[in-house]
């Protein structure tokens, strides 16, 4: 069948082609319809690809029929199909949610621009995940980043402009470091295809340029992934961006960057070079621990809910990179599961906060006082997602913490296992502040009285809340997919 064969290309091309179409049509309703249709198509496409990869193994698609390593290859394997499903599903949910939320937060003239940037960003992130070519990855990284800067700067407060600008500076430095790393690899090996790089990098005699490339790639990708201490752009960006953008970014953008990091560490450099020639594992574990502890503590003292959960994101990224640093099957499984679980959990929280922002106009803690009475579904949803963030059994968050502890113990790092458990208690502290405000405080002057958030916001948000619980019990997709990805990465080669 013709269309099934071209699914990998359609996965990226459809959202990409939707962008100019939206600019041409301009009408807000039509713009939303096209964006939602493109996002829905991308989701269906990602699910079909994941299903095919699970059944038949990795798919290699030659773009324009140029055979790799000369042409650009799109490669869908256990890891990339897993990340594709995450990005595309969050994209579809965010597109549904955007209509009401964007109508409330943006001027009507800006709607079509928002949807254009949204589908471009989606196309960029999907492209980063699916491509098998290092330079093509850079181009998609810039497509997603440039549209992301615009999406952030669209926020209603003028500080959104500054947040967008800061992210533009840091993001561009990150992307440029990435392209320097790719350049050094190209000069050493003469190839840009990731699978081909993996073979040739083993034959390079002079290791110094390769190690320099590794250093540049690590710094560049870490900037994009907001790995502590390169996270400075993240809190402002998440706080001032429009609600739906915060949810979409928190759930996908940093996750795709971590995917790229994992891809380069394990597929290209292979475990031995990365973890033996340079103490990457120790550095990554050290930074992750700092991220978890510092960002969790900072989160406890925030006065704005969006900012609090933004710092919590920095901490959660620490858990993911901790799993990457452990570099055993359980650790990598934990990293991949947490990538997925944290994506849906944080997506749910930011979507629910969007409902609060719609009713109250802001997301300060004072607005949340007593919202359990006026907005019971929003408050209850945030409690469930908060429990998943902590890692309470019965939620998705528990599964990832479980594998993380398992990975730490397998590595003989008992203190890390203890640390994961203890730092979860800091998460209890900040989630409890929200519960206390919502359930145990009398409504204040700032508390919204307009009642529950509209259904068009609640339904997409609750889909993700339900997913937090569902993936806490039915783990065949998230753990199964993550384990297959981890085994493929550690099995050596692509």
């Amino acid at each position, binding site marked *: 069948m013709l269309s099934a064969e071209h699914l990998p290309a359609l996965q990226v091309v459809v959202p990409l082609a939707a962008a100019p179409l939206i600019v041409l049509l301009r009408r807000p309703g039509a713009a939303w319809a096209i964006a939602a249709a493109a996002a829905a198509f991308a989701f269906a496409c990602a699910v079909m690809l994941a299903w095919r990869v699970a059944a038949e193994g990795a798919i290699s698609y030659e773009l324009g029929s140029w055979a790799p390593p000369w042409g650009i290859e799109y490669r869908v394997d256990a890891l990339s199909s897993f990340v594709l499903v995450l990005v595309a599903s969050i994209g579809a949910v965010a597109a549904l949610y955007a209509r009401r939320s964007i109508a409330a937060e943006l001027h009507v003239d800006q709607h079509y621009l928002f949807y254009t940037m949204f589908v471009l960003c989606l196309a960029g992130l999907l492209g980063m995940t699916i491509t098998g070519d290092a*330079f093509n990855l*850079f*181009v998609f990284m*810039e497509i997603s980043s*440039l549209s992301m*800067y*615009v999406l952030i*700067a669209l926020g209603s407060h*003028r*500080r959104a*402009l*500054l947040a*967008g*600008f800061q992210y*533009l*500076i840091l993001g*561009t*430095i990150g*992307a*440029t470091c990435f*392209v*320097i790393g790719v*350049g*050094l690899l*190209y*000069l050493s090996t003469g190839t840009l295809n990731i699978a081909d790089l993996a073979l040739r990098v083993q034959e390079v005699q002079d290791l110094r340029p390769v190690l320099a490339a590794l250093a540049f790639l690590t710094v560049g990708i870490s900037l994009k992934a907001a790995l502590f201490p390169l996270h400075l752009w993240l809190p402002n960006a998440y706080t001032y961006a429009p609600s739906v953008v915060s949810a979409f970014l928190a759930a996908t953008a940093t996750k795709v960057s971590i995917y790229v990091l994992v891809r380069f560490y394990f597929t290209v450099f292979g475990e031995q070079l990365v973890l033996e020639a340079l103490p990457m594992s120790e550095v990554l574990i050290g930074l992750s621990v700092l991220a978890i502890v510092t960002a969790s503590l900072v989160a406890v003292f925030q006065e704005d809910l969006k900012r609090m959960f933004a710092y919590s994101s920095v901490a959660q990224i620490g858990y993911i990179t901790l799993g990457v640093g452990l570099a055993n099957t359980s650790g990598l499984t934990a990293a991949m599961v947490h990538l997925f679980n944290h994506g849906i959990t944080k997506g749910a929280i930011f979507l629910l906060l969007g409902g609060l922002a719609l009713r109250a106009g802001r997301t300060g803690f004072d607005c949340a006082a007593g919202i359990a009475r006026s907005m019971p579904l929003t408050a209850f949803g945030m409690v469930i997602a908060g429990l998943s963030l902590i890692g309470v059994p019965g939620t998705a968050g528990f599964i990832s913490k479980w594998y993380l502890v398992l990975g730490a113990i397998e590595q003989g790092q008992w203190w890390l296992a203890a640390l994961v458990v203890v730092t979860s208690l800091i998460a209890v502290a900040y989630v409890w502040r929200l519960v206390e405000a919502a359930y145990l405080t009398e409504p204040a002057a700032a508390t919204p009285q307009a009642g529950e958030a509209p259904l068009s916001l609640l339904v997409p948000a609750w889909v993700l809340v339900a997913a937090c619980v569902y993936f806490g019990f039915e783990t065949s997709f998230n753990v199964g997919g993550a384990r297959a990805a981890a085994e493929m990465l550690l099995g050596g080669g692509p």
Partner: protein
Amino acid sequence: MTFASHYTYWMTILLMVGGLYIVIARGNLIKKLIGLAIFQTSVYLLYIAPGKLIGGTAPIVSEAFKVYSNPLPHVLILTAIVVGVATLALGLAIAVRISEAYGSVEEDEILSVDRNEVDGA
């Protein structure tokens, strides 16, 4: 391994470090963007210079030409230049909006406006 034989590498490093320094050290948003552009330009040189062979021609399949320059880095950098231009344009556009909203493009002035706003509220 003389200085002259690695001339392009030294220039690349100089531009790279200089550009990054401007981004970090300058508070003016426009100057930051200029630093960023210089930083990106260093990468163009990093890619293109090793692709050139002295006496090499474009890769034409012919008996008359034996030494070819590598065309791929040029193609890659053409893409990177487009990306760089787009980034610079977007950065400048946001700087214009910041200037309209805050009345300044100096980072410290903008931050002090924000701080006063918090104190006032």
